[in-house]
């Protein structure tokens, strides 16, 4: 079943002079099994939107339906068992390494599963599996999370969410502050999780991640959904108005087309396919 937003609005500081409407009548469906990106400039409502998926925020209007759970503006309709919902929807915040607090890595990763009602030894087992999944071997289990490097800490905190075995995984800027290869490793990890059947919702500014990993993109602008599309079609359009940066490859394609070339964007995957396309268009002339 998809995650469905039905006419959802959210107002911060309601009934105060500082009231601010962060979401305006959102209607979207995030398909089960998809790798969906949510993009847009800072303050466009992306984070507010994803906070509704595991009921960290309740809508001011409308409702969000996640499988059998309902997060509605109407208190009576709301699902009471928040824990079951939060187990189902894992949320990895930006810089998640700041949520570590236990004395060993395995304990920290087991913290979530234990909160969701798993027994001590089952939670530890789930923790070990999740740690191996994120690429941290037995040597890390008993270490203190605070003595690890930045990238390793981030892996531990992500393992802490994966250990809860969520069906939906929301990740907010998971590559912020990582170097290019660290980012790639991180995203490959999410791709692996996605392949195993988890729906991934990626909140990001980085269009290269959208291009390389996502199958669908939701563009947010000023609290509204501006566009729902797929990455390649998105890069064919003018997205600078949403403060998004076209990956250089597609910027080149767009500029070349503006200068009279005739390149089919849909056939360009990388530099090599671009050059193939260029030759074809040269021959065509």
């Amino acid at each position, binding site marked *: 079943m998809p995650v469905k937003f039905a006419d959802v609005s959210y107002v911060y*500081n309601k009934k*105060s002079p*500082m009231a601010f409407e962060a979401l305006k009548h959102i209607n979207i469906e995030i398909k089960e099994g998809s790798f969906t990106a949510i993009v847009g400039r800072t303050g466009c409502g992306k984070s507010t939107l994803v*906070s509704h998926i*595991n009921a*960290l925020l309740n809508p001011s209007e409308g409702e969000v339906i996640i499988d059998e759970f309902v997060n509605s503006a109407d208190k009576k309709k709301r699902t009471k068992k*928040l*824990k079951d919902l*939060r*187990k189902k929807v*894992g*949320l990895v*915040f930006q810089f*998640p390494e*700041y*949520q*570590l*607090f236990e004395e060993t890595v395995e304990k920290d990763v087991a*913290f*979530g599963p*234990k*909160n*969701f009602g798993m027994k001590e030894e089952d939670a530890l087992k789930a923790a070990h599996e999740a740690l191996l999944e994120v690429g941290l071997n037995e040597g890390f289990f008993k270490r203190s999370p*605070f003595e690890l490097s930045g990238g390793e800490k981030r892996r531990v905190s992500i393992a*802490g*969410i994966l250990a*809860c075995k969520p069906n939906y995984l929301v990740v907010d800027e998971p590559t912020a502050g990582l170097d290019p290869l660290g980012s790639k490793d991180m995203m490959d990890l999410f791709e692996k999780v996605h392949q195993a059947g988890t729906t991934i919702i990626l909140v990001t500014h980085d269009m290269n991640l959208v291009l390389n990993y996502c199958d669908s993109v939701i563009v947010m602008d000023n609290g509204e959904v501006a566009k729902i599309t797929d990455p390649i079609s998105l890069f064919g359009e003018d997205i600078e108005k949403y403060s998004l940066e076209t990956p250089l490859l597609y910027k080149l394609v767009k500029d070349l087309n503006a200068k009279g070339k005739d390149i089919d964007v849909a056939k360009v995957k990388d530099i090599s396919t671009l050059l193939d396309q260029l030759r074809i268009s040269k021959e065509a002339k």
Partner: protein
Amino acid sequence: MKNFALGRYIPYNSFIHKLDPRVKILGIVLLMVCVFLNFTHPVVNDAGETVKATYWTMTAIMQGSVFVLSILLLWISHMSFRSVLASLRSLWFTLIFLLVIYILVPTQTVMQLGLAWRVEAWNWSVYWDSFADAGKIMLRLMNMLMLTMVLTGTTKPLDLTYALEWYMAPLKVLHFPAAEVAMTISIALRFIPTLLEDSMRIMKAQSSRGVDFAHGNILKRITGVTSLIIPLFVSSFLRSEELANAMECRGYDPRAKRTRYRLLKFGWRDIFGFIIPAALLGLYIWWSVDSSVFTQFVLSGVVLP
């Protein structure tokens, strides 16, 4: 948390906002002393009889004037009364608590307002004085809160810090690091919103990991709070380390003399900021010392015997 008015600076350009923070601190301190002055004069008239109710009337006049003055100050400084009321709302519990205490343990040795009711079965009397006592403490608390709000609401935290540093200046003779203390306070103030944001973020993250900060047994709640406090400490340490580096790189040397961007200036309005509270305090002290005043009050009918 957001509508908590106490201690928050409300940007505006009122008369009180423009006062020199040093004068404001002094003025508010003087008014605070007024709030704490207790009318202790023996309440005996010329005939040698105890004048009933004088104590309460005088207390009401003294606390009441400060109350009216505080409201006036809040009004001049354009503070919203709604936010003031919101801050006072939490005092209801205190009022009930005080009332119970004063009814059980009356402070006055001589009851002046008479019996409220009597429970014969327990041989127990409740006097109106207990209510008046609770009311007095409440009025005092409210006065203190409102005066604090006037100070913090109209003075930028940094200006307050500079003013405190100015008052601490004489301590430099004793090698007291006034400038460093002021810098520390100003940085702490600067980082309050940042740390609040941090704690909100960590709370959200831990909630997603199944922590319920609002419900659950004591043990679970302690774990919940630990999962918030430790990450908060870790990030604060990191922040302070990076901040220290940044300050050092920008040439900060705690021992060296620095020049000042913000200078405090004493202007014509500041005379009022000093004169009015000082006059009020003077009046109160005079009342407490010179017994003839009461005779005048009694004679003019202000204080009913």
